[in-house]
């Protein structure tokens, strides 16, 4: 039996195995056979054994023991053995194996073999798996072969050079001169290889790129020859003369003409010719046209040419072949920013592609559609996009939703439209939207104050219909909580009125609270909304009270905390309940990623981009708030009793703080404390904590004497680690009879959190007499507490 039949016999036996186990057994036997064969040495059977091993390897079984055999076979003088040996090397050896270096010498010898087929084997293997080291060793050999006489070898050497350059970019100079001369070859194979080589050289080295720009006329000539030549059966594919070569030349021209006017001018005519004359009924022609369009868009072409290119892409969009449509959309995506108007003309076709069966095409169409949305077409585009959202495959949903939101934000014609659109998205694809959608929508709703009634009605209806979509439920709960009174009033200009009773609303919220579909975060929203309603409804406050108290023993910590606090609000702080649950002010939109101050001790501008943590922070015991402040300031000698019981200043100021954050009522001014009173001059101090370490101290001086105080100056000293910055005083004359004041602001930065002390020296003239005095301020609490002062 001939040895090659034995290989085929083995293949047949393996294929006839009925189970995986049977196959494994056969393979094991064969491998043992092969190993024995290898050990026997040269007996004419080695190549067949290796071939068998390669088959086994392709099935996925390990074949490392064949590596050395590859090396041996490559070194054999027999062509058949070399052939299989090199094949084995390409399959089993790669540059990561050490054995690959062993074949370098054989390759070197074979590169100068008398038979061109042996040379070809060596070239092919080097180009396939040659490592950087091997490439460096053999580069000069390859360069020599580039100038060989036979085109068969030349074309292979050229592509081998491409591989070498990819592995060892420093060798570009070695190949540049020969590459230039190769362009004058007639043989298409060599020409093709030369163009690939030049492309690679130009991509690696900008100097080489400049050099090869001079070759543009030559390349244009070659292309012209291909495009206008008569029928040449050898290279013809569907009527196009050598489309492979044409595509490569066009790609090289693209690189050479990029950002270069002279080169671009030289190829303008050619590109126009190719664009108009190429027949695109088959793939080959379309491939050439596609490459032409890419080239036109990437060089400095004149506008007429660009329009031509976009029109070609538009024609592609209408092509029956799905591949061509996909290609055209990919290209349009690349140019939609630069040639926006041209692409807009094809908007209709692109939107139609949203309905294509293929997901890749759909995805492309989606990206393009989103890029084409503008203020002019927003309404019609949004209609299409919303239809798409309801039928699109799940992997595209979240992209579509965020795209719709972005577009709506930028181009929405009216607030109501914007809100409607977001609501639509939430109902259709609520599960796929991003987290920040909820606060964004809430912020949007608060700014559209005239639409509150409309919005809350719509959301209520959506809530009643379906409570599965969490973002929608969250927004709906929030709105019902805030604007429940509008909902209950029942009238609204923009929707037909429906009578909603308090029980209905509470039922809806309770359903949300109790449903197993609701997430814990949503439950939080619902509970807070229920609580807020206690101030907006009249009859069912007891019902709310009972709901809230039930959740006081809930397992979820967040809910339990909220319920307990709301309970406290009912019981001990009932007098504050109305104020606390007042309607929220319009929120400022902040930059994304800005985290609201979750630390309860912050007393700064209401930063309410995230309503949830604000609400949680608001209801922490006022007393603990005070204590935190004291702690943060490093403690005082006499800590204030943390009782919320009425010492008027603490409670009033803490509720003032709460009210500050709510922004509903006029905030009572932070009290200033008097630190010095003598001779009619009184000095008051007012502290504002900006951050954990910074305090702004405002000193106010007033004059109760009969005469003006002039030349009034303040000097201040603080402990060493504290930084002091005194701002300019408002003036240095204090009018008499308390008619005016001088204020001066001092910024203190206390990074080490030492206990703050400040010594203030006042100097002034009154009735011609110069006065000077010093007062020491021992501790700086926040505005909520009294500073303790020791006069010197």
């Amino acid at each position, binding site marked *: 039996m001939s040895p090659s039949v034995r290989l085929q016999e083995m293949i047949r036996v393996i294929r006839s195995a009925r189970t995986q186990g049977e196959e494994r057994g056969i393979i094991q036997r064969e491998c043992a056979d092969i190993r024995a064969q290898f050990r026997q040495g040269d007996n004419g059977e080695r190549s067949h054994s290796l071939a068998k091993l*390669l088959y086994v390897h392709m099935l996925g079984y390990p074949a490392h023991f064949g590596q050395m055999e590859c090396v041996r076979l490559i070194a054999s003088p027999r*062509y058949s053995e070399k052939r299989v040996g090199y094949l084995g090397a390409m399959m089993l050896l790669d540059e990561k194996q050490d054995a690959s270096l062993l074949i370098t010498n054989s390759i070197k010898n074979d590169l100068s073999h008398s038979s061109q087929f042996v040379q070809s084997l060596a070239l092919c293997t080097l180009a396939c798996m040659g490592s950087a080291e091997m490439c460096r060793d053999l580069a000069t050999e390859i360069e020599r072969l580039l100038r060989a006489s036979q085109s068969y070898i030349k074309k292979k050497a050229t592509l081998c050079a491409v591989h070498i350059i990819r592995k060892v970019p420093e060798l570009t100079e070695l190949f540049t001169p020969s590459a230039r001369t190769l362009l004058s070859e007639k043989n298409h*194979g060599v020409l093709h290889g030369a163009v690939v080589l030049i492309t690679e050289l130009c991509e690696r080295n900008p100097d080489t790129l400049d050099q090869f720009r001079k070759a543009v006329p030559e390349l244009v000539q070659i292309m012209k020859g291909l495009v206008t030549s008569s029928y040449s059966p050898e290279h013809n594919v569907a009527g196009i003369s050598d489309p492979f070569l044409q595509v490569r030349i066009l790609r090289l021209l693209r690189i050479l003409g990029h950002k270069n006017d002279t080169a671009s001018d030289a190829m303008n005519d050619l590109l126009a010719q190719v664009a108009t004359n190429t027949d695109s009924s088959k*793939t080959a022609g379309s491939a050439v046209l596609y490459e032409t369009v890419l080239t036109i868009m990437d060089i400095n072409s004149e506008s007429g040419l660009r329009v031509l290119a976009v029109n070609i892409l538009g024609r592609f969009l209408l092509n029956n072949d799905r591949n061509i449509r996909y290609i055209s959309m990919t290209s349009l995506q690349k140019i939609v920013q630069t040639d926006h108007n041209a692409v807009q003309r094809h908007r209709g076709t692109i939107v139609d592609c949203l309905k294509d069966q293929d997901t890749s095409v759909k995805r492309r169409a989606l990206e393009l559609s989103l890029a084409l949305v503008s203020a002019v077409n927003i309404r019609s585009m949004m209609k299409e996009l919303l239809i798409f959202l309801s039928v699109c495959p799940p992997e595209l949903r979240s992209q579509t939703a965020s795209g719709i939101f972005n577009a709506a934000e930028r181009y929405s014609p009216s607030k109501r439209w914007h809100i409607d659109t977001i609501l639509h998205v939430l109902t259709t694809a609520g599960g796929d939207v991003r987290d920040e959608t909820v606060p964004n929508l809430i912020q949007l709703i608060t700014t559209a104050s005239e639409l509150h009634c409309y919005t809350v009605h719509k959301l209520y209806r959506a809530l009643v219909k379906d409570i599965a979509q969490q973002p929608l439920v969250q927004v709906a709960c929030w709105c019902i909580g805030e604007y429940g009174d509008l909902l209950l009033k029942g009238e609204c200009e923009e929707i037909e009125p429906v009578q909603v009773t308090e029980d209905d609303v509470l039922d809806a919220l309770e359903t949300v609270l109790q449903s197993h579909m609701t997430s814990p975060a949503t439950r939080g929203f619902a509970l807070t909304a229920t609580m807020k309603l206690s101030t907006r409804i009249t009859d069912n406050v007891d019902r709310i009270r009972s709901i809230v108290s039930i959740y006081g023993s809930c397992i979820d910590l967040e809910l339990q905390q909220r319920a307990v606090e709301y309970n406290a609000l009912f019981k001990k702080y009932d007098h504050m309940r109305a104020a606390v649950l007042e309607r929220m002010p319009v929120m400022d939109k902040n930059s994304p990623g800005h985290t609201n101050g979750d630390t309860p001790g912050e007393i700064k501008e209401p930063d309410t981009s995230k309503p949830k943590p604000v609400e949680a922070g608001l209801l922490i015991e006022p007393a603990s708030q005070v204590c935190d402040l004291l702690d943060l300031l490093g403690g005082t000698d006499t800590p204030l009793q943390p009782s919320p019981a009425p010492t008027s200043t603490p409670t009033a100021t803490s509720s003032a703080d709460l009210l500050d954050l709510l922004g509903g009522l006029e905030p009572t001014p932070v009290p200033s404390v008097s630190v010095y009173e003598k001779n009619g001059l009184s000095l008051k101090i007012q502290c504002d904590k900006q951050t954990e370490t910074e305090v702004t101290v405002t000193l106010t001086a007033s004059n109760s004497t009969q005469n003006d105080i002039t030349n009034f100056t303040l000097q201040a000293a603080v402990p060493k680690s504290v930084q002091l910055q005194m701002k300019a005083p408002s003036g240095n004359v204090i009018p008499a009879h308390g008619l005016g004041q001088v204020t001066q602001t001092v910024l203190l930065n206390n990074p080490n959190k030492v206990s703050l002390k400040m010594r203030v020296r006042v100097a002034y003239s009154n009735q011609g007499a110069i006065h000077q005095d010093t007062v020491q301020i021992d501790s700086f609490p926040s505005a909520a507490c009294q500073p303790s002062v020791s006069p010197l």
Partner: protein
Amino acid sequence: MQFMLLFSRQGKLRLQKWYVPLSDKEKKKITRELVQTVLARKPKMCSFLEWRDLKIVYKRYASLYFCCAIEDQDNELITLEIIHRYVELLDKYFGSVCELDIIFNFEKAYFILDEFLLGGEAQETSKKNVLKAIEQADLLQENLDFQIRLLPAGVLSPNISSESTGLFQS
């Protein structure tokens, strides 16, 4: 081109040509994932898909999938033409080629591929020249080894399966 894979409709690999250095494990992983992805595509879908950071071009001929991974700057449509050219070469060589031919003569399929593509790029754009080169190489092998072929390539036990369908008849 980074690699080319040929696999059957059941996901069995018939040919793999890698032009980038990867470990055996990585190759197996890529093959497995890509085969799954391509086999999951419906018949009317387009031939291009994006997978990891590569562009994949694939086409089915009878029971065999031809799948190429190309880089960003490569032209997808011309890659389709390259695949078609390779199938034409196989067809001419084996005479109405079918999957069985490629299974039982896999080394010849590799030899033909290596005469058409080198280092991932087309080396010869003329069909005639590629076939001529293969023919001469085969002759060289026969003459040098005085090897007598008992059976012509590709003819074996009549196996009426999908694998014996000619690639050009779908």
